[in-house]
């Protein structure tokens, strides 16, 4: 296969056989309870230096509780696949957790921009679609996939993509390398104790992100019975054998919105954005993360039931978000 051009961005060399071996030896097929606390799950399944991914962002159905726990445990040297993100890379960077990012897109953020401009974190350019497409390749057990975008641009030059001559048609086409994350953290609406998980509403890449990871931590708004899962199998987004930990965290995406259940907290969002802009993320993290043992304790002491009920009332769109 003739390679016509190669981006010079750093990427992890795909290793589908290595991933298969990992699955063979590490992923239990047993239907056993994986329920544990966020603290236990992050201690057990997130290591310094891991390649981390997550579905959606801290504004909507992001795994906020799990991200906070990663920050609380001061995980370091993470390589984070950033796409369609909000302030989530900013808080992970401010928490000192990140050494490298893939950029699909990050929201305008002083923390992110400064970290890149000052060379504190390393960067590989991609696009939103290319990152989730690389996860799809990883989720298919393949080393790469062809795609009809990214080519011709400076984004391509700074990515790990290649332009080749298609051996079937003789036409030019780009390839991107598969991405198998070390660890994915994903927040869902419902999950049983084994990890069979349901997500309602538009996702970004729930199936791909969950499937491509070596280790998968699911946090869920509620733990439902396995009978309930088996009554409506069509609704299962992720089957249990991909899941390593099930963390029961109601309001687990706070301060973000959980479609169909509760809205985001606008006051908190403004506080987070201002902390980013003013360069006071340390104080923000101290107030919202380090000061507490858990997400539940933070909700209890800093948010309160009255506010949480208001956020539930604010989500007036309920159609389609329940089984």
């Amino acid at each position, binding site marked *: 296969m003739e390679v016509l051009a190669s981006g010079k961005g750093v990427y992890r060399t795909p290793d589908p056989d290595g991933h298969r071996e990992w699955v063979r030896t590490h992923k239990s097929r047993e239907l056993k309870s994986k329920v544990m606390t966020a603290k236990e799950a992050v201690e057990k399944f997130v290591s310094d230096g891991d390649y981390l991914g997550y579905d959606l962002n801290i504004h909507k159905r992001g795994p906020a509780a799990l991200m906070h726990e990663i920050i609380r445990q001061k995980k370091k040297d993470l390589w984070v696949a950033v796409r369609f993100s909000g302030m989530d890379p900013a808080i992970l960077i401010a928490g000192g957790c990140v050494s490298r990012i893939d950029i699909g897109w990050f929201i305008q953020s002083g923390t992110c921009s400064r970290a890149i401009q000052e060379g504190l974190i390393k960067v590989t350019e991609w*696009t939103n679609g290319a990152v989730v497409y690389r996860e799809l390749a990883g989720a298919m057990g393949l080393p790469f996939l062809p795609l009809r975008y990214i080519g011709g641009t400076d984004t391509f030059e700074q990515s790990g993509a290649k332009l080749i001559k298609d051996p079937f048609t003789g036409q030019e086409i780009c390839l991107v390398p598969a991405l198998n994350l070390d660890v994915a953290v994903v927040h869902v609406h419902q999950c049983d104790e084994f990890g069979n998980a349901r997500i309602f509403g538009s996702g970004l890449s729930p199936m791909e992100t969950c499937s491509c990871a070596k280790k998968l931590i699911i946090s869920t708004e509620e733990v439902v019975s396995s009978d309930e899962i088996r009554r409506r199998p069509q609704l299962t987004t992720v089957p249990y054998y991909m899941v390593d930990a099930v963390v029961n965290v109601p309001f687990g995406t706070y301060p973000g919105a959980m479609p169909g259940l509760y809205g*985001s907290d606008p006051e908190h969002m403004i506080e987070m954005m201002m902390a980013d802009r003013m360069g006071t993320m340390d104080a923000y993290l101290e107030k919202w993360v380090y000061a507490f043992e858990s997400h539940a304790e933070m909700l209890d002491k800093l948010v309160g039931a009255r506010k949480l009920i208001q956020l539930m009332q604010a*989500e007036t769109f309920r159609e389609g978000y329940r089984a």
Partner: protein
Amino acid sequence: MSETINFTTTESLLINVANLIENNKYYWVAIGGSPMMAMMLARKTLAPRAYYVVEDGTICPDPLEYVPFLSGASGAAEYRAVAWKDMNTVGFHCAMGYYDYGILDCLQVDMYGNINSTFIGGSYEHPERRFGGPGGANEIASMCWQTIFMADQEKRKYPRRVDFISSPGYLDGSPRARERAGLPANTGPYRVVSEIAMFGFDEETHMMKLLAIAPWVTLDDLLVEMEFEPLIADPLEKLPPPTEQQLTVLRAEIDPGGRVLGQGTWIEYTPED
């Protein structure tokens, strides 16, 4: 004598884009920004049967109001969609040719319709100002049949050559440049829209071409707000001024708080009879 109307540059930009939107066409619009506002304006006025998708996988929704990305999109933006899918599915449908137009807001657009959302000033390794990257704009600009770009008419936004091609226009403008880079055939930039101008692209040279200009500015007013001189259509058309209906829908239904609309500068215009 006609009545004087007042509107902001932001309103004018949104209206110029909305006037391009057609019934029974499918649009991929950037999520939660001005492209979405232009789409909502069109759907509430001239093009109620224009349909759209956003990159998180919300296919053909019918939201009641404009939902800014930052307010935590949530259920409001997904309301009454025909399908809730994911980003890869949207990419597949675009790659197959289902999406007629993309609409993108951009930081910089150059003479060949290349757009930059990565950095400005300095070098890639040492940027003066770093931005968020292409996001989904690269997919949109690569694979939709035609792409509409929105950019305020400011010199720094219309450079001869962008500092970094985040998402593709006609690249170096040469024949088949996009196809040679692996992009789908017969795609590319269609219009660039500002608050005072509408541009297309020359079929041969792929250079940006001024098609129409707002009646309240002169050609010189426009050209000082561009780093390069575009080709100029002959005859050069006049853009229609905002209608009362468009302004009412924008102000009363789409952005009642004026959070977005109020950001522009005010224009006072009296149409000639």
